[in-house]
C-alpha cells in the first residue's frame, strides 16, 4: 500500500470519527458533563452514542481471528487481531 493510500485512508477514518462526534453532539463539552452529572439533570445522550459505536465495532470485529493480510501494512501483516490490539 502506497504512503498516499495509507495517508488518505487515515484521513478518511479520522473524518468518520470527527463527523460522528459532531453529529452525535459529542463535540459539545456540556453534553459530556451532562452525562457525568448523575446527581443533576442527567443527559443520557452519550449512552446512545456509545451503544451504537460499540454495537458497530462488536459486529465488525466479530469473527476476525486473523485480519485479512491483503488489507494490512507490513508492520502488522499476519498478526492476529488479539495481538494487534494488545492492551485493549
Amino acid at each position, binding site marked *: 500500500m502506497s*504512503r498516499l493510500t*495509507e*495517508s*488518505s*485512508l*487515515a*484521513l*478518511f*477514518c*479520522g*473524518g*468518520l*470519527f*470527527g*463527523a*460522528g*462526534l*459532531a*453529529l*452525535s*453532539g459529542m*463535540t*459539545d*463539552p*456540556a453534553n459530556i*458533563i451532562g452525562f*457525568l*452529572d*448523575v*446527581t*443533576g439533570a442527567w443527559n443520557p*445522550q*452519550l449512552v*446512545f*452514542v*456509545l*451503544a*451504537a*459505536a*460499540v*454495537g*458497530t*465495532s*462488536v459486529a*465488525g*470485529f466479530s469473527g476476525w481471528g486473523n*485480519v*485479512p493480510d491483503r*488489507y*494490512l*501494512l507490513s*508492520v*502488522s501483516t499476519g*498478526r492476529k*487481531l*488479539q495481538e*494487534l*490490539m494488545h*492492551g*485493549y
Partner: protein
Amino acid sequence: MTSMAVPALAGGLLIGLCAVLMMAWLGRIAGISGIFWQAVSRPAFSPVAHGAFSLIGLLTGAWTVHRVTGLALPVLPETDTWQIVLAGLLVGFGARLGSGCTSGHGVCGIGRLSVRSLVATCVFVLAAMLTVFVMKMGG
C-alpha cells in the same frame, strides 16, 4: 428524546465504523489518545504518519458536520486557563497510563469483548462522575 437519540445513534455508528475500518485498512486501533501520542511523538514526515492524518481528518470531519448542519461550534467554558491545562495534562497522563481512552478502550476494546477494556471504561467513567460531583460541591 427521539430528536437527540437519532443523531446520537447515527454518530455512534460512524465512530464504530471508523474503529472497524481503521483496523481493517491500517491495522491501527482508533484510539484518539494513542493516535495523538503517535502524531506528536513521531515527526510528520516519518514513514508512519497515520496519526497526524487521522487527527487532521478528525478535525475536518467534525468541522464539516458543524458547517453543513449549522450546529453551533461549542464555546469554551468560563474556566481559568490553568484549570483547562491541568485537566488536559491529567487526562493525557491517565490515558497513557491506562493504555487508552474512551475511544480506545470504550469503542475498540469493548468492541472485541476485552474484559480489561470494560474495567478501564467503567473505572474512568465512574471517576469522571465522581469528579463532576466533587466539583459541583466545591463551587
